[in-house]
């Protein structure tokens, strides 16, 4: 099966893109988008959370008497009231405190400000335990575990666990056979949290045994399951609603605030309760990217081809799994990975949304750029010698990749940026303004974009006026559901503007479409909507041949085609009728689809396999999923202040088939800017004495604004290909520009001739000055 032709939308259909853009933005720009916080109900109460002011210990006693004496305060709930028996739940009050800011009580009052006022009136006594607040308490800079360190309490009897080994070939032999080897002790990278625009919030009330919950999430059906598990009630008694969801995507998935507020409402007899987390506490509870450290030993042959790579890796509060950046970007015949989680009394960590690549990207870049210098190559030349090609097979499984665009991505940014003419030996170019010039490169294959159906379905409905509703299931549409609409339009031959989202954000009447993450939704539902649209098309054409003008022609289904919501005979294009004309005499018509089921396993194999032949591998053959990205950054560094000025930032991303161009560019643009933040501005700020995160305000945490990022220096290049795992060749692109972090650091290195130690934070000027020996 060849890749279908895109007739309706495609990368260059500006008119269609404009229509979609306008439709998607209207509700937000006019203030008509409705959020959980907009809910109002007679008799509703407000709740907020008190958080721990120790980093490790046990709650001994909660004295709520002063809070309860404050007029308007209705109740104070602790672990014993609503958590006991349900196990530790991140947003529920805790008995054991594992980090500063852990929730310890929930206060309910007549209004939110009264609840907030009562926070400091709740007195919590703790049995305080020694806290492990720094990575150096657990593992030294030499990578050796610290002996006799106090326990953080996150694991039973250690702070140092979760080794995740992986190996191919014989690393020891490979290193021994190498012409040159070098060991790199690579610094701890940044940790920072999602910065939610909309605070964590949820609203619940009960009518008899049924609970009605409004929440801000990408995964409304998943929350219903969480509520069932926590409250031990049947799913059909749980009714979840969600419309708009304000930012922090990727972290609006499986938190437990909805279950908590449902439990509180139940405790209070079912009255409506709105729980809202303060901005500070939202930033404490939000998932954080883990900070990583590595010790890599790389060996190459006499020509600079990598022979072996030995990686030992550490992450904080998260398991250090090998990523495709290491395993599937370059040809490395002998590869070993040993990962360690170091568990501290700090908030939980997670992967950078669905990718855990940025720190690994930095570390591999550091090692490769240095290795390039040894071979008297520029970083591009060294990568070019080792990068995997479009038709290379997976080095572990021997399977083909659904798509392999990393080389093309790298070539794109190298060409567009003029990298080869701008690169120079590190620390050797001073500009006329006194600043140091630098340029950096990064390229990687990553784990985004798998296309499968799982067990999710899709329904599309053609109404009697010939327009189409899609049932997306989750929150009000953003890019991912829009993409589903486009797929339906493409398959049906409908105008894009004739396809709209039907009901959404209501678990009672929508399918479980899975979480609305951009990349995963594309994958999980894209195939299902494709199938549903095919089903509807067949039904529509079957009905159409009974109607004029097709009946008079004796047309058969296979004689028909459609475009721009018009059905026509392929051999007699003038014999045509609009969808509306055909449907005028019909009942609403539904198309139902399921994606193909794909099981994931440890080697990330897409069991559904290839949907089109690839490199001689037949349809159905197992294939490895993939996406790719590359980045070049050009900087100027002020050697007297350590300030870094980005003067050019080129990103390319392997997108498979581009379905929704605006969505791709938005995703790439925001991903690119996000990496500005991670590299240069933004990071958790810890108090080294207590472990408290003290940068919980946007001011202190140095979140950059749009004024910090010059959009005229930001260049985005979607690289189109054919993802052979999906019906239209598309895949999700998630956070595609995560490699920018590495290219920015590499550019600084190229400018100043030293690698900056992020020291768990961003490369702020003080750290640049330190690298320069000036601070």
């Amino acid at each position, binding site marked *: 099966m060849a890749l279908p032709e895109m007739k309706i939308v495609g990368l260059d259909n500006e008119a269609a893109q404009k229509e979609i853009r306008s439709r998607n933005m209207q509700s937000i720009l006019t203030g008509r988008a409705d959020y959980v916080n907009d809910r109002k109900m007679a008799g509703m109460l407000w709740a907020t959370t008190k958080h721990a002011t120790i980093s490790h210990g046990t709650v001994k006693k909660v004295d709520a008497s002063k809070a309860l004496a404050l007029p308007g305060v209705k109740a104070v709930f602790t672990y014993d009231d609503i958590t006991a028996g349900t196990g530790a739940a991140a947003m529920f009050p805790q008995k054991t405190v594992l980090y500063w800011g852990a929730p310890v009580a929930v206060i309910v009052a007549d209004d939110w400000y009264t609840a907030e006022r009562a926070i400091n009136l709740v007195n919590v006594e703790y049995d305080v335990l020694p806290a492990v607040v720094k990575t150096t308490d657990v593992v030294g800079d030499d990578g050796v575990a610290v002996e006799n360190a106090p326990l953080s309490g996150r694991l039973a009897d250690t702070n140092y666990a979760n080794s995740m080994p992986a190996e191919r070939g014989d690393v020891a032999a490979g290193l021994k056979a190498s012409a040159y080897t070098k060991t790199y002790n690579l610094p701890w990278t940044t940790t920072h949290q999602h910065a939610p625009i909309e605070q964590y919030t949820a609203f619940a009330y009960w009518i008899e045994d049924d609970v009605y919950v409004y929440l801000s999430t990408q995964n409304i059906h998943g929350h219903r399951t969480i509520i069932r598990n926590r409250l031990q009630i049947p799913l059909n008694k749980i009714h979840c609603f969600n419309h708009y969801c304000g930012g922090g995507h990727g972290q609006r998935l499986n938190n437990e605030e909805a279950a908590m507020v449902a439990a509180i409402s139940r405790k209070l007899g079912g009255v409506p309760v709105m729980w809202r987390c303060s901005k500070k506490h939202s930033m404490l509870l939000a998932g954080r990217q883990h900070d990583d450290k590595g010790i890599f030993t790389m060996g190459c042959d006499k020509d600079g081809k990598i022979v072996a790579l030995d990686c030992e890796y550490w992450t904080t509060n998260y398991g250090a799994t090998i990523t495709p950046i290491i395993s599937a970007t370059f040809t490395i015949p002998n590869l070993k990975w040993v990962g360690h989680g170091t568990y501290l009394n700090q908030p939980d960590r997670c992967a950078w949304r669905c990718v855990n690549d940025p720190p690994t990207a930095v570390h591999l870049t550091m090692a490769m750029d240095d290795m390039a210098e040894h071979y008297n190559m520029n970083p591009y030349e060294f990568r070019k010698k080792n990068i995997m090609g479009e038709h290379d097979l997976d080095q572990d499984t021997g399977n083909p990749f659904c798509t392999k665009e990393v080389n093309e991505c790298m070539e794109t940014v190298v060409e567009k940026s003029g990298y080869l003419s701008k690169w120079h030996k590190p620390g050797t170019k001073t500009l006329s303004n006194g600043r140091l010039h630098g340029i950096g490169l990064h390229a990687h294959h990553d784990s985004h974009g798998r296309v499968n159906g799982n067990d999710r379905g899709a329904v599309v409905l053609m109404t009697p006026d010939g327009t189409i509703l899609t049932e997306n299931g989750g929150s009000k549409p953003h890019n991912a559901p829009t993409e589903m609409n486009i797929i339906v339009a493409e398959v049906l031959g409908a105008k894009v503007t004739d396809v709209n989202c039907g009901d959404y954000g209501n678990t009672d009447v929508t399918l479980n479409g899975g979480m609305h993450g951009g990349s995963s939704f594309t994958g999980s539902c894209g195939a299902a909507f494709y199938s549903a649209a095919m089903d509807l098309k067949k039904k529509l054409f079957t009905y159409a041949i009974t109607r004029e003008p097709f009946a008079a022609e004796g047309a058969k289904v296979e004689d028909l085609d459609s475009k721009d919501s018009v059905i026509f005979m392929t051999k007699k294009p003038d014999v045509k009728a609009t969808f509306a004309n055909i449907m005028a005499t019909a009942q609403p018509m539904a198309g139902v689809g399921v994606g193909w089921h794909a099981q994931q396993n440890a080697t990330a194999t897409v069991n559904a396999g290839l949907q089109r032949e690839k490199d001689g591998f037949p349809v159905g053959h197992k294939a490895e999923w993939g996406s790719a990205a590359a980045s070049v950054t050009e900087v100027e560094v002020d050697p007297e*202040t350590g300030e870094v000025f980005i003067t050019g930032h080129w990103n390319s991303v392997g997108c498979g088939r581009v379905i929704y161009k605006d969505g791709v560019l938005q995703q790439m643009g925001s991903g690119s800017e996000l990496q500005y933040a991670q590299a240069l501005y933004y990071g958790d700020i810890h108090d080294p*004495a207590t472990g408290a995160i003290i940068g919980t*305000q946007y001011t202190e945490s140095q979140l950059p604004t*749009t004024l910090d990022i010059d959009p005229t220096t930001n260049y985005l290049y979607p690289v189109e290909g054919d993802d052979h795992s999906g019906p239209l060749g598309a895949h999700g692109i998630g956070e595609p520009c995560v490699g920018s972090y590495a290219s920015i650091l590499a550019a600084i290195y190229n400018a100043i001739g030293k690698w900056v130690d992020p020291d768990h934070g961003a490369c702020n*000027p003080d750290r640049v000055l330190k690298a320069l020996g000036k601070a």
Partner: protein
Amino acid sequence: MDNLVHVNAGSLDDAVAQLAKGGAEVCAGGTDLMSSLKGFISDNLPTTIVNIKQISGLSYIKEDGGMLKIGALTTLDEIANSSVVASKCAALAQAAAVVASPEIRNVGTIGGNICQRPRCIYYRNEYNDFNCARKGGKGGCYALTGLSRYHSIFGLVNGCMAVCPSDTAPVLVAAGAKIVTTKKTWEAADFFKIKGEKINSLDADEIVTEIQVPTGKKSCYKKFAFRKSFDFPLVSCAVVGDKVVLGGVYNSPYEVSGDTVKATSATAYNKYKEQIANTLIKRAKADVK
């Protein structure tokens, strides 16, 4: 935010009378006060807000007898865009132009800018998780044992390591400005010696009414912050005539003698400020106009 009494003062006398009752604080632009209140940052926050924005005659920029006179309610944006200020004390216009963000400069006043609370990351921590020395708490100065990256490199004052975050303060000290209040006329250098939680020596019932800046000297203001779009200065430097004053390095604006400074109590976290300060001194001196 706590329940507050909001009073619209009809006159300065009315405002002073309201303040004298205790537990009250002036609100002009409110940009610093509101974030303090909403964040529950201290146990000593006011319960009464005295709004002085309706008092007429406190917003102006004029030159009078070799002195630039600026009403306390003049917004930072007005100062930043005033041709009079730019021609008579360029450094003040430059400083006002880089305070916070455009939105804040539109409502924030020069009076508020010199009467704000410190930006110490411990002091500002919401819900008063760190009840520090500046607040009269028992916690001492948390920066001493914790993160002093943003703090003083010239030691503590009243047990506090926080720095003066005002952009305009170093200019006013360097210019030898006077701060007129409802009680007296202060020399700027004395005005910014800290007494309580705020960055100056004002009594609780004392209100700034006018800033008087001597004119006729060339000047320049340079600011350094990690983030350029809006931020408080980590280090700043005002040069007016032959006077050089640093901001962001000490509890008060720090006067420099000579061409360079040497930090007297830098930590491993904030040693970089010395390098930045010396760079800004050099650059500000080169750019005076």
